[in-house]
């Protein structure tokens, strides 16, 4: 794993999990092992992320896909250590980034990483930006937080970054406020802020969900070309399988707090093994589908966090015959072919 000079790796042992971490570790910018995140609520402690493991390869894009409430955003928040306090807690697991375990890193050390070496693009560009500061100032804020820069130098860099994300007349735009920009332009500003310090990893949580398809195409295109130029890795969180197919090298499918299937994007779309992945893929209307035909559905709905069972969580919705013990024993996460992992419930796979 690449280390910056003078930075000491954090001494931490990798917890026992079913994942083999020894090979190809240097290719990975981030390795998440058996992450468990829970929230304290009036109804007791609820586990939102239950033993999630994945790796993000350097310069590549990992997609995390799943329906609302499956824990994809909480996974991102856990990596960034932005869980709402004091309710949100990382109970277990290891988030390896450049020799450090982000899950247990002291707050001050985490602050020097967040926004600098790992940054985030949020879904709603209006709420992610501060309405009372100019765009230029908001970019400068990130730059000066992490670098010792003169205000003038920072401002010029902010203008450069705005130009890089495709904002026309960036000198003028930098002096404007968020409400003066359209949704697509605002999302470009959010991307500019995320990229200001040249991060190694960008976590994009539903970056195009609030945008029109035409603007979505612009933004995805921009993210791809910036990735080619700057070489950062991306975790793209979305519920849209189309977006995943177009942008991601690898995919994690999440359901009810767990990764049910993980693998190379082409392999996973061509050969989905888990009943949930199959259900998701067949329930979207396709442009080349039979018009007005009945769509495949997944019956029922995602279980609530307080109804989760230790075993397979998809069995009750799978329309297949299952027995009570399937809901009680957690299935193994197995590698069924090279790089293609699946939660091997005997009913659902």
């Amino acid at each position: 794993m690449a280390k910056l000079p003078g930075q000491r790796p954090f001494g931490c042992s990798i917890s026992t999990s079913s994942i083999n971490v020894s090979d190809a570790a240097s290719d990975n910018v981030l390795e998440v092992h058996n992450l468990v995140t829970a929230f304290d609520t009036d109804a007791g402690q609820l586990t939102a992320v239950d033993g999630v493991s994945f790796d993000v390869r350097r310069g590549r894009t990992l997609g995390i896909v799943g329906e609302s409430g499956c824990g994809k955003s909480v996974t991102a928040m856990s990596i960034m250590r932005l869980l709402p306090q004091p309710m949100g807690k990382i109970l277990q697991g290891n988030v390896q980034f450049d020799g450090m375990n982000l899950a247990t890193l002291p707050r001050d050390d985490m602050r020097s990483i967040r926004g600098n070496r790992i940054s985030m693009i949020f879904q709603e560009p209006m709420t992610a930006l501060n309405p009372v500061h100019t765009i230029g100032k908001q970019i400068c804020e990130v730059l000066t937080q992490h670098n010792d820069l003169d205000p003038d130098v920072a401002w010029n860099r902010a203008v450069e970054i705005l130009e890089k994300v495709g904002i026309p007349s960036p000198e003028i735009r930098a002096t404007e406020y968020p409400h003066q920009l359209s949704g697509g332009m605002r999302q470009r500003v959010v991307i500019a802020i995320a990229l200001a310090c040249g991060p190694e990893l960008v976590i994009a949580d539903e970056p195009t969900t609030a945008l029109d398809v035409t603007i979505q195409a612009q933004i995805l295109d921009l993210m791809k070309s910036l990735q080619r130029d700057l070489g950062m890795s991306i975790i793209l969180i979305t519920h849209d399988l189309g977006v995943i197919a177009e942008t991601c090298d690898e995919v994690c499918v999440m359901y009810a707090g767990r990764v049910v299937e993980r693998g190379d994007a082409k392999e996973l779309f061509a050969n989905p093994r888990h009943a949930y992945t199959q259900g998701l893929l067949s329930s979207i209307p396709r442009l080349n589908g039979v018009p007005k035909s009945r769509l495949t559905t997944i019956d029922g709905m995602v279980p609530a966090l307080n109804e989760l069972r230790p075993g397979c969580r998809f069995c009750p919705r799978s329309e297949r015959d299952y027995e009570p013990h399937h809901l009680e024993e957690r299935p193994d996460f197995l590698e069924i072919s090279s790089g293609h992992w699946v939660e091997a419930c005997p009913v659902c796979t």
Partner: protein
Amino acid sequence: MYVMDASTPILKTEDLRMHFPVKGGVFRRALASCKAVDGVSLSIEHGETLGLVGESGCGKSTFGKTIARLYEPTEGAIRFEGVDLASMSRGQLKPYRREIQMIFQDPYESLNPRHTIGTIVEEPFVIHGMGTREERRKWVAELLTKVGLSESAMNRFPFEFSGGQRQRIGIARALALKPKLLICDEPVSALDVSIQSQVLNLLMELQREMGLSYLFISHDLAVVKHISDRIAVMYLGRIVELAPAAEIYSNPVHPYTKALISAIPVPDPTHNPERVILEGDVPSPIDPPEGCRFCPRSGLEYSDEVLKTKPPFLELEQGHWVEACPACVPDARLV
């Protein structure tokens, strides 16, 4: 009063315009007008689903609300089975309100959180003074069963239901008065994919069963393609292309339609699209040019002349219409 035969479309708009004044200054005078819908002529046949697509701000929701007469149109006609609703008073409209109903996008905001589901679905009957209390309860129970909910839902509150279930409640309410035309404004946009397909299936079943006509407004082109018979593409208050669903995807003529279709992300990683990426956003509908509105964004060469004169809406092939701006559609020929 009017003659109705099978060839009369259930709804037909003629040069429909909905302009909103933009007020400002000390005396709140109208300074400009926002031309949300600016000369739309469309028809919806009996039992047909007309899809309406376009980017946010193109006026598609305003069009839906205008034909439901939630707005009073500035100009033009809305003929429901031949009768013009555009200039009717509230009282005159009341019988027609039963025929045209709406389903809204956000199932969280379109149901009153303080009312039980029974009260919500019953309300249309109360407004139109139909039935006794017992009869109404019976009808509500039937409606809930029809949309796939249990009767016991009647005594529960909206917060106890998931997004997909709430959308079903919204559909039950819209169906209460046995309407002929349903305006579905982004009905599945807020739902997860697995739930989205459940609601789409329900809408298609109800259409077959009850012979409903739909105006299906959405920005999701794959969904619209699946459910619609014909599709209209809207840009900045006008229809730029109208064709049967399969035709518009296989043979789009207007450059805006082409760009919209090519922007759809296809859920297949081996698919490598030739993508037309549009520059910029939808321009402001405040005082737009009278002529072609897409030229400035098309990346094509155009003269000032095309911005001044309204391009004709031509039928290229049977049922395939396009706004034939000479710059955007240079080789438009009549049938």
